[in-house]
């Protein structure tokens, strides 16, 4: 039943590893840049707030596939030589996902009530202590479910690097399919593999969501 899959298993799984690697780079970079974007979105300085807001609203209105293309065209001009599709894809994912993580970060921060901060100050904590012991832990707990969900979406999105010829799993599946012509089992296999990982991820996200609902921290 899965004969064509089994014969090409190492090749296909090698592609899957590329998806995982791309997701790791995208998440590491996206979370880092996303934190900066989130800070920019809650900044009171207009020269920080407006450019960052423009960046976020601009990219959130554009298909990721087009962003991948755009970076694929613009990177050689900036760097001066043709780049590996993996690098180009990683850069586009980081820049794109950072806008989504930035909005999650902003929402988490803004969900904390001013009274809580005032209460922390009134116990004699200074700003740094308030941030370390009150703001960051609570905001993090509230952001965690959305962050996991967004990470799953990022992982699914890595398949779109297909369009610039990156040899990730979907690209490799189309190559195998063009030789073996076993579309049903090959595409089912890719679908099942993605489903298992993403389903587990969505359960973990749900778990933390219920947990924070039960905890009822202010």
């Amino acid at each position, binding site marked *: 039943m899965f004969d064509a899959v089994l014969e090409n298993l190492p090749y296909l799984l090698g592609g899957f590893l590329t998806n995982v690697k791309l997701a790791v780079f995208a998440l590491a970079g996206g979370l880092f840049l996303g934190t900066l974007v989130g800070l920019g979105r809650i900044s009171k300085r207009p020269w920080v707030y407006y450019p960052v807001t423009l960046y976020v609203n601009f990219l959130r209105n554009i298909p990721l596939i087009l962003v991948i293309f755009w970076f694929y065209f613009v990177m050689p001009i900036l760097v001066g030589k043709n780049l590996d599709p993996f690098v180009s894809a990683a850069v586009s994912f980081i820049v794109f996902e950072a806008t989504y993580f930035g909005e999650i970060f902003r929402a988490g921060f803004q969900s904390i009530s001013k009274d809580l901060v005032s209460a922390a100050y009134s116990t004699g904590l200074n700003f740094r202590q308030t941030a370390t012991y009150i703001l960051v832990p609570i905001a993090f707990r509230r952001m965690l479910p959305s962050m996991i969900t967004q990470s799953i979406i990022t992982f699914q999105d890595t398949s*779109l690097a297909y369009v610039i010829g990156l040899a990730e799993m979907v690209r490799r599946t189309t190559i195998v399919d063009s030789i073996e012509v076993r579309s049903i089992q090959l595409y089912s296999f890719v679908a099942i593999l993605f489903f298992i990982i993403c389903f587990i991820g969505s359960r973990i996200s749900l778990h933390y969501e219920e947990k924070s609902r039960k905890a009822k921290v202010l």
Partner: protein
Amino acid sequence: MLSYKFDWGVLWRQPYGEWLLQGLWLTIQIGALAWVIALSLGILFGTLRSVRFLPLRILGSVYVEVFRNIPFLVQLFFWFYAGPMLFGKTLQFKINALSGLNYYVAIVALGLYTASRVGEHVRAGFASIGHGQYEAVLSTGMTPVQMYWHVMIPHALRLIIPPLTTEFLTIFKNSAVAMTIGVAETTFMSYKIDEQTFHGLEATTGAMAIYLVLGMTVVKLMDFIEARFRIPGLMTR
């Protein structure tokens, strides 16, 4: 820095400017038609997830989980390449010979995928309606089907207009993935211009502007719908 001569003329010079507009027209078609499928199936499966009868609830949940946890690109390729094979050898060749098959597959696949996301919002809408309303409606003598059709679904839909706006915006963005099976929508056209002129940067930038304008138009349209169907007495954004 590589020396690169910008040529923004590719955005309006014949035939390239026209290509982009043709692409936009296809993007609108695919997004709008897929939205019809997504909304009807999304309401159906979202409602199933909130009924009392367990098998129906499981059916709704399975649909949503399956279609939400598989990348859209994989789903699209499955329906396009493996889909016709599911009908057996003789029908398969007839289906593959259809002209514009990729266009129809893109609409259906995008509709099925987005339905899972709409279904999730519909369920959340039902969850936010108080339990008392179910009992109140049933006590007027309505059957459960009448209750859902006349009261619950309209109520839930009006509650979830904001997240549905986001989904409606997303469906136009996701329609760009249809380029991978050769549907000549906006992104496909910008790539085609690159193949002909090697000015992909200008072409994709132009396509970005098109998506931006399209997105802003959709937001305006949904603002109007939201104002029209707002439930009086509830907090506004």
